[in-house]
């Protein structure tokens, strides 16, 4: 989808942005597009905090592409507290999506705020009056969130939902235990690292939708998760740990002592009936696809096994295989779309309220690495 500006991006008086935006809406439609009837729509205020113009452009572009699904007022804050001086400047723009045939043209506002040095401290005060009344406020930290800084705390305090990507946090495995305390404080959290697991969790759950298969859940003895290492060869187990944490939280598995386990690649969990589950996490060297780490999941019970694995090099398909008791083994190709940033973000923007499943999985994962 293409976007077209409704007037140029203009520097605005930070104290009078609303007035300047109103003037922008009165400008003629830009580009050589038709002067179609346009619709102004806004279902949320979306605040993104970035560092540097390049990232600001990337993020703004990504958000504009979602305008048709989530019309919003975007406030992109380029905050660089370490730079010298003290400045706070703003630009405003209205962009429209070129609609599909027969669709309505939706136009939204983008406000860019650039803060340098001590000017960063004035950002929350500038943002607060720009929140659109009566619609949710979502704060997105596209890069590593500056945990514990005043800007981080104050912007999050305005939010109904905070979107982070725990995979981008330095040494995420070590931070698992403290993430909720730092981000949560009772508000809704979206973690894009968790979002990447959604299709894997759905496919795993689907194995057990029949009454006969549900009973196998309490008999699982082995779970293996294959995941990609990072491009630089380092191993980050966040997503596989979250996946195992999800299973553990749903099935009541507890961390167990395991003398023979290699802490990096294996562990043992105890089922509610006292039985043991061997967990192995196997890193595969290679490039990540859209920061997706999981490459395959295998689960064994005494009389059944379940497997999800990538279909060769094909990026948008997996093979799902089931073997249960005396039934003939089943194998099928399932569509698994590439979960790029836009799709992840769009999925999270659809959500309201806290994701207790994530919080519980995070808690279980934290217990495993404690």
């Amino acid at each position, binding site marked *: 989808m293409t976007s077209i500006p409704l007037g140029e991006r203009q520097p605005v008086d930070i104290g009078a942005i609303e007035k300047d935006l109103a003037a922008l809406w009165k400008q003629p439609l830009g580009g050589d597009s038709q002067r179609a009837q346009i619709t102004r729509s806004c279902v949320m205020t979306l605040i993104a905090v970035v560092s540097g113009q390049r990232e600001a452009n990337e993020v703004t572009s990504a958000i504009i592409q979602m305008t048709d699904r989530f019309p919003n007022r975007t406030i992109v804050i380029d905050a660089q507290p370490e730079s010298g001086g003290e400045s706070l400047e703003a630009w405003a723009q209205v962009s429209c999506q070129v609609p599909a045939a027969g669709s309505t043209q939706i136009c939204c506002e983008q406000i860019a705020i650039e803060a340098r040095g001590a000017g960063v401290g004035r950002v929350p005060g500038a943002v607060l009056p720009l929140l659109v009344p009566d619609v949710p406020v979502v704060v997105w930290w596209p890069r590593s969130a500056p945990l514990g800084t005043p800007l981080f705390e104050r912007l999050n305090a305005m939010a109904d939902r905070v979107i982070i990507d725990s995979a981008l946090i330095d040494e995420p495995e070590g931070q698992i235990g403290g993430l909720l305390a730092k981000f949560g404080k009772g508000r809704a959290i979206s973690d894009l690292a968790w979002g990447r697991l959604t299709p894997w969790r759905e496919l795993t759950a689907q194995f057990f939708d029949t009454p006969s298969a549900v009973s196998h859940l309490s008999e699982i003895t082995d779970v293996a998760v294959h995941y990609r290492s990072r491009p630089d060869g380092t191993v980050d187990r966040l997503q596989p740990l979250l996946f195992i944490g999800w299973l553990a939280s749903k099935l009541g598995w507890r961390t167990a002592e395991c003398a023979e386990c290699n802490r990096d690649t294996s562990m043992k969990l105890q089922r509610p009936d006292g039985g043991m589950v061997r967990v192995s996490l196997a890193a595969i060297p290679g490039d990540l696809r859209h920061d997706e780490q999981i490459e395959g999941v295998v689960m064994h019970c005494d009389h059944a096994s379940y497997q999800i694995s990538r279909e060769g090099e094909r990026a948008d*398909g997996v093979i799902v295989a089931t073997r249960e008791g005396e039934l003939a083994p089943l194998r099928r190709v399932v569509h698994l779309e590439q979960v790029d940033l836009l799709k992840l973000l769009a999925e999270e923007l659809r959500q309201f309220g806290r994701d207790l499943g994530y919080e519980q999985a995070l808690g279980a994962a934290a217990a495993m690495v404690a």
Partner: protein
Amino acid sequence: MTESTTNPLRSGLRMQRTPEPCTVVIFGATGDLTHRKLVPGLYNLYRERLLPPGFSVIGFARREWTDEYFRQTLYDDVKEFSRSGLEEPLWQSFAEGISYNRSSFDDPAGYQALAEKLAALDEQRGTGGNRLFYLATPPESYATIIEQLGAAGLNHSPNGGWTRIIIEKPFGRDLNSARALDTAVHKVFDESQVYRIDHYLGKETVQNILVFRFANGIFEPVWNRRYVDHVQITVGESVGVEGRGNYYEHAGTIRDMVQNHLMQLLTLTAMEPPGSYEANSVRDEKVKVVRAIRPIAREDVAKYSIRGQYTAGTEGGKPVPGYREETGVDPSSNTETYIALQLFVENWRWAGVPFYLRTGKRLPKRASEIAIQFKSAPLMLFDQGPLNNIEPNVLTIKVQPDEGISLKFESKIPGQTTQIRPVTMDFRYNASFGVASPEAYERLLLDAMLGDSTLFTRSDEVDASWSLITPILEGWQNGPAPEPYEAGTWGPQASDAFLESAGRKWRKL
């Protein structure tokens, strides 16, 4: 709810709805509905990972087709009609579960072969005895197929599985035939197994009527006779009979549209809040509405309804023939292609509020909507001269093509004098959500596989609906011919006079 809710891994998942492994058996597998809607819909569900492992389809029809040929024709049609297109590896995997069973509908051997195939699929693909039969045949075959399914023991599943049957509209062509079909169905299937489909109920905006009414607190207090002047329900089609002249001659607009689609819109608009959003609670309230509608006696049909039939005219500026010139239509046909009805729901909420229904073919545009027209303000403070022409508030639920909700109210025109003009506050689905809605059939097929019958019509609702419609049909049998209207216009002039006599007028769409 289904057994799948006992799967603890489902709790908290964003995708909640996946049925148990099952086989869908489509009777009439070589027909248009199968190829344009049903299988493309199933393929889309598969692509969205909403179908379970082992999911299978058996086509059942008379033509001498093989499994391979059946799959090939479906491949071509999915490619053309699927909203997501076709991806080869996915199709190959999906098509592994598709087979064809050639038989006439009255041949017991064909059902025996079907039973054997189903048993084999239970073994090979783990479908667990779960079967969904879909009657996508002409209605004349329904009773035969149902009887044969019963004779072959296919009305109940082995191994604790479930068996359900979807029956396409029309369910009967009058009260007697509907009751006869119902008797035939209930000889073989329990009502809990029967899913009478009206694809209108699969449309997002139709479902949103309930959400709009019962998830918001501000509308219900004014949703009654005290504030509502009347309700207009319009389902307009710009197309003609599209080569289905033979069918239409036997159906007519009232059977084709009113008994099902328009009645569904009316019941959802007029029903009381259900005790819960559970299939029978919702359907109980819908039935109460139909039963509360004042019957129209045979001798009163001309007083409460207007029939029309299109003559030659235009569609989108192009000349089109009249109904009597259409293929398969009797040149002296008295079949209606337009009908307007005035109905009264006689209960405490709606007593005295007319519900005007109109639908027809070859109208100027395709448009479906429900318009709630409120009573005028009790005191016209601003009605001070020719500049002001105060109109009543209207809340419109647009079903198609531009799904949305709009509220019309009066506003002051900026200036030194108090001039008033109506304006609208519009909510458009595609402006707030911007995502393509799934096809109605996808939602309904999935619901049937999940055992959720909320959006399907229950036996007593069909009966109540035909009880209301049949006297109108009979009244018109001896009545005058339908009023002619030129193709591309909003129906016969008598239809306008119908409302004008009550001091009202049809909405301009």
